[in-house]
């Protein structure tokens, strides 16, 4: 039983991909948050423009950033994540032919 011959379970493969999506979402979140806050926000406050009553840096970074993350999470949940059983019995049925 060496490292290379052991197949990764089907459900684990999907789970691994979904975990990476979580990391990707966090990276996008951080980039968006940081980018708007410290580009628009580094001007002197007298020169700030305002959107819906909020300073533009804050609006884009914190308010729009939050909305964008919600939309991305909804997209990921609806179109990317896979519905699967988490129970033990199911697996034996699904992967009954898998020798190990």
């Amino acid at each position: 039983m060496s490292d290379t011959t052991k197949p990764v379970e089907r459900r684990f493969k999907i789970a691994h991909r979904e975990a990476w999506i979580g990391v990707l979402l966090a990276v996008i979140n951080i980039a968006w948050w940081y980018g708007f806050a410290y580009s628009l926000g580094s001007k002197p406050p007298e020169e700030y423009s305002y959107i819906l009553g909020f300073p533009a840096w804050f609006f884009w970074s914190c308010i729009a950033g939050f909305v964008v993350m919600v939309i991305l999470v909804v997209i990921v949940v609806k179109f990317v994540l896979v519905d699967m059983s988490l129970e033990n019995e199911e697996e034996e049925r699904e992967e009954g032919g898998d020798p190990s």
Partner: protein
Amino acid sequence: MNWDVLLPLVLLLVVIFFIGVWSNRKMVKSSSFITDYFLGSRELGGLVLAMTMVATYGSASSFLGGPGAAYTIGLGWVLLAMTQVATGYFVLLVLGKKFAIVARRYRAVTLIDFLKERYQSKSVVLLSALSIIIFLFAAMAAQWIGGAYLIQSITGLTYTSALFVFAIAVLIYVIIGGFRAVAMTDTFQGVIMFVGTLLLLIGVVIAGGGLDQIFSDLMNENPNLITPYGQDGQLTALYVSSFWILVGVGVIGLPQVAVRAMSYRDAKSMHRALIIGTIVVGFIMLNMHLIGVFARPVLPGIEVADQVIPLIALEVLPGWLAGLVLAAPLAAMMSTVDSLLLLVSSSVVKDVYLNYVKPEASDKHIMKVSMGVTGTLGIGVFFLAINPPELLIMLNLFAFGGLEAAFIWPVVLGLYWKYGNKYGALASMITGIVSYIVIFQYNSTYGDLLGVHAVVIPVVLSLVAFVTFSLLIKRKAYYFPRG
């Protein structure tokens, strides 16, 4: 103090009491006491899962300390608080389905059950149990103190009687209802927080004369208040960004959060929880901290940060509504305390007692011990909180960062990296805790090392320790057993 304000608070206590009784009834019918008491029989649906994650995590600091800091520091602190949006999706996605599947195979009820099976090491179990018991006990005590202060400031009771009211309220439903009661009350409390913060925000904006007026008042007082850099320009981009680790992605290492990632019923529940959780946590954090900033022109000159929210609520809202809104921080504290209490209790009962003292205990015996331990811990916290010792306060400061640095890699890499082994896990936990305490002390004396929050360097060091020791000592690939 008038009854308008008190009535909603009393109602809150009555409702959660009934949730406790209901959960206890449900528990009697379940097949395994221990899985039900400490994990709600793994049957949380999407809404409850999302709410219990948010509520466990959003503690007194988010509802009193956080807005208080925003009051002093300005929009920069709201920016910092928004790093917490990540907790809504990150933990559930990254621990994800693999954690849920593996937990079922291991029949894991606590985070330590997972670590025990994965690393097959008594030292890992005892070290984890010890750090959970010590750190979370302290964190819990700090929340009790906060809860008692809040009740005191609203009702005018003495500190000790306020503490007593808080203790009785929490203990009853946690002791009899277990995890399900905790999760259900968290949901109820989460809804209160959600509605409460929205109402208060609207109230403050109206009292302040609209957003334009509020921002021009802030601008006139101190333009730094509306920049990302804090009232004295003290918040560097690097420092604020390091909170992504402390309160954003690093939360994955907190045992009370991670255990919830193995409590859901099925993949659908997890999917729903991702959406609900992200919305709720972002909404509450944004509103709550904005309230803190907006309170400044409305009610200038508040000295004690924790009083900003109670005072502003009483100022801008009618009495009964203020009572409802103030139920939110109380709910937040209770929902954190209840989870911590149950987690510490599960570490004592499941991880230590059942593993090493009396493995063949009967279900009935386990039930007595579980409820007994939960009750004893609660009473212990009560007496410590009456006159909190210095050490307790210090341990609380270390609690979150210390636990994150200790557990993040043993959990995440234990799940995803086959070469992770017990030597790596032990090295990682010891490195994480020790370096966090050392760097925390160093930072409070000499200023932040490398300009980042104390949690960042220990998280990196514990990663290095985990990988190095796993590869150096008895390197061997690990495969999860088939179900």
